[in-house]
């Protein structure tokens, strides 16, 4: 993101980026709900200039949509906070208040029943903005979620997340929407990991953001937004291999890095006898891996474009790609050496 902003000679955006980082920190480190809300608002305010580019009508529209949904969710959040403070002594209300607060936070994140804005907006943003949206913007709602959550409601939401993330992605050809639905699916895993422990959520979130970063930087370097742009004849083999590894890692296939957090979560599920939930986690993972493999398989087998104006055969600096492949493949094994 820094790199992109620096190359585009747009140092105004650097200013908003810093405010974005600080807003999240405000939100998660405040000791009052009001401070949380303030952080969320500043977050919204500073993200809008990052994504709106007045020369492009689509990105203006996208930023408007983003503003509308997020502000609605923030209003609701503030309202629920105030109701909570006014009805402090009435413990019967806890259930409903927590449901309502969780719903507004879920809408902020783009999680399941309130996720309809998410693929739309992701479709309208560029890759770097997407990266911000998918990783950084999820931190503060999730931590706020971990402060006051309703277990039953959240489990239901998790199941909806998983199912919608897997089923929605089956019919997509745009890479951004594909990653959006995969992000919704991973949100299901992450919310469940919040309910297990904070540390585990942090672990999952870090690995997820690393994987997303590798994928998005690959797509950004290739300037690819749609699936049919993957079928290029003179694409370097290692780039395709890196794509394969990253997709499979995102899906949670064993020797790759993305399997580790999912493994820990499944372990917890099975020990504590959450069998039905395990089943749903597994089956939706299978559907997601199916459509990843469909993409990779086609991209390896079908090569019917040959672009003459872009030299994709030898990228200038392959070291980043090689490094990311290496990390994705060997992290699980190397981590056993670290935590020995």
């Amino acid at each position, binding site marked *: 993101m820094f790199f992109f902003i620096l190359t585009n000679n747009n140092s105004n955006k650097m200013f908003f980026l810093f405010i974005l980082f600080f807003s999240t920190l405000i939100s998660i480190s405040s000791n009052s709900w009001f401070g949380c809300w303030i952080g969320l608002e500043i977050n919204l305010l500073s993200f809008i200039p990052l994504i709106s580019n007045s020369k492009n009508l689509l990105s203006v529209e996208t930023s408007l*949509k983003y503003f*509308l*949904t997020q502000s*609605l*969710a923030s209003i*609701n959040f503030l309202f629920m906070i105030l109701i909570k403070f006014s009805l402090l002594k009435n413990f019967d*209300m806890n259930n*409903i208040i927590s*449901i*309502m607060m969780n*719903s507004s936070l879920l*809408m902020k994140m783009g999680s399941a*029943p*309130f996720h*309809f*804005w998410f*693929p*739309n907006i992701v479709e309208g943003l560029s890759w770097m903005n997407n990266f911000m949206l998918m990783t950084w913007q999820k931190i503060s709602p999730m931590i706020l979620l971990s402060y006051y959550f309703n277990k039953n409601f959240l489990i239901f939401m998790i199941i909806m997340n998983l199912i*919608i993330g897997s*089923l*929605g*992605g*089956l*019919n997509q050809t745009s890479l951004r929407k594909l990653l959006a639905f995969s992000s919704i699916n991973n949100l299901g895993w992450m919310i469940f990991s919040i309910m297990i422990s904070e540390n585990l959520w942090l672990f999952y979130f870090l690995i997820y953001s690393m994987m997303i970063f590798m994928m998005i930087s690959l797509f950004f370097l290739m300037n690819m937004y749609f699936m049919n742009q993957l079928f290029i004849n003179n694409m370097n083999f290692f780039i395709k291999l890196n794509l394969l590894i990253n997709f499979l890692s995102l899906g949670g296939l064993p020797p790759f890095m993305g399997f580790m957090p999912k493994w820990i979560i499944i372990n917890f599920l099975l020990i504590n006898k959450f069998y039905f939930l395990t089943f749903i986690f597994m089956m939706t993972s299978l*559907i997601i891996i199916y459509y990843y493999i469909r993409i990779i398989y086609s991209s390896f087998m079908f090569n019917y474009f040959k672009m003459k104006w872009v030299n994709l055969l030898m990228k200038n600096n392959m070291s980043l790609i090689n490094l990311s492949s290496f990390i994705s493949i060997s992290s699980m094994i190397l981590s056993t050496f670290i935590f020995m």
Partner: protein
Amino acid sequence: MLKNNNLICFNSFFFLFFFMLINFFFFVYFIMNGLSVFFEWEIISFNSMSIVMSILLDWMSLLFMMFVSLISSVVIFYSKSYMNSELNLNRFIILVLMFVFSMVLLIISPNLISILLGWDGLGLISYCLVIYYQNLKSYNAGMLTALSNRIGDVMILMVICWVMNYGSWNYIFYFDFMKNDYVMFIISFMIIIAAMTKSAQIPFSSWLPAAMAAPTPVSALVHSSTLVTAGVYLLIRFNYLLIDMFFFKVLLFLSILTMFMSGISANYEFDLKKIIALSTLSQLGLMMSILSLGFPDIAFFHLLTHAMFKALLFMCAGVIIHMMNDIQDVRYMGGLSLYIPLTSLCLNISNLSLCGIPFLSGFYSKDLILEMVSFNSFNLMVFILFYLSTGLTVFYTFRLIMYVMINDFNLMMIYNLYDEDYIMLNSMFVLLFMSLLSGSFLSWFIFSYPYMIYLPFNLKLMVIYVSILGSILGFMVSNMGIYSLNKLLLSYNLSSFLCLMWFMPNLSTYGLSYIYLNFSQILFKNIDMGWSEIYSGKGIFNILKNYSVFYNIYQMNNFKIYLFSFILWFMILFIFFFI
């Protein structure tokens, strides 16, 4: 055009010939001094368990090794010219060498584990050699060969299990002590079945004619002298145990029937190699029956002489097949004795030796067998079937000679009958020499004193009567002119029964597999390509795809609907709770 590296042929020929000379020398020394040597090599000894490899060299194993190495060296030299245009000749020769190695391992081993190694090696390599030409017929023949031999392998494995009761796998030590034991009873049963599968006796005899899909040198080495006699050799080794057992009498019955059946079937056959295969089967039945009557050394004697002339016969058949441009059907051949004198010399001598013409090598063993059968009193069926089979042997032999060498020439208009392939001829001459002399030579060595046989005059000449009758019948049957009527077709059922080996190949091929193949077709059509496609294959994919399409319709919606639905959710919660 010689395009192979033929050094492998020469090298292996010289090696095996030299090996044969060594074995001959040691055989003479051992049998003259009555020696037998038992080597033991202790591989591992660990606490109370020790793995020991043992080798038994007595005159029987040395003699058999000499014959095996002689035939295999001659066959390898022969295949230098026969398999000349073969691209992978090295592969072929290496397979033959591995076969010889397995056979030698089988011959010299006094314990069951190395017998199993040799036995399994024989089965596997004969499969590899039968499927050597890669076509459908060879595939089917190889499958039949391998699976029939496999039954014998399983039997030997079970014998290994049972003989562990006695503490070691060296079976030769236990014969004296354990004769009436229940375990020995079971072991003898299984050994007999194993030998029956390898030597193609009656229930398992369908693989031997089918295995003629192999190249002719393979048939000469494997299916005439070494593989099929491995079963007889095993029974000769176990003879001391088996001699009073009931199953030996069952074996007598089955082997006599084998002898008879294959003799009849050979008379209906028109494929040259199949006639020779059925004659091998008949002689194997003879060997097994004289063994089960209680004369192991005569059986061994016949095994060796038969190996000589049968290998020679196969090699002559190979020369004829090459010359006829790969036609194996006997009806296309005729009058060849005028054109290929040397080959027809070898063919004649081996055929007459097979019939038991006096003082060729086959005479010594066959005549001795028949006289022993007449001298010791056995029952009428044994007697009749023995003599009848001898007559049938002469019958099909003379029929073969008439068809191939004496009748009119039946090949196409353009032909090239040549006899000058000296590589093949030289190898045949070695076997010719042995096939003339080995009868007397072996009888002087093996039998230190002759058998005492005292027969009435006509019984003594019964052999000659039966042979003359067979030869006359053979001559008469093969006088097929253009206008002759085939009266066999009038009794179609009987003649097809007799011709198709009493329908036994159906037993081991079609009969066993039909039910299962039918059932598996039903399963495949109904389950694999039927219900399980709906419930787990394409069906699930369609369901998921429909859900996804349905979801997509929801996704493409007006934006304020999303915002409004969010507000609606909260209003429902409020109304639900605060009322």
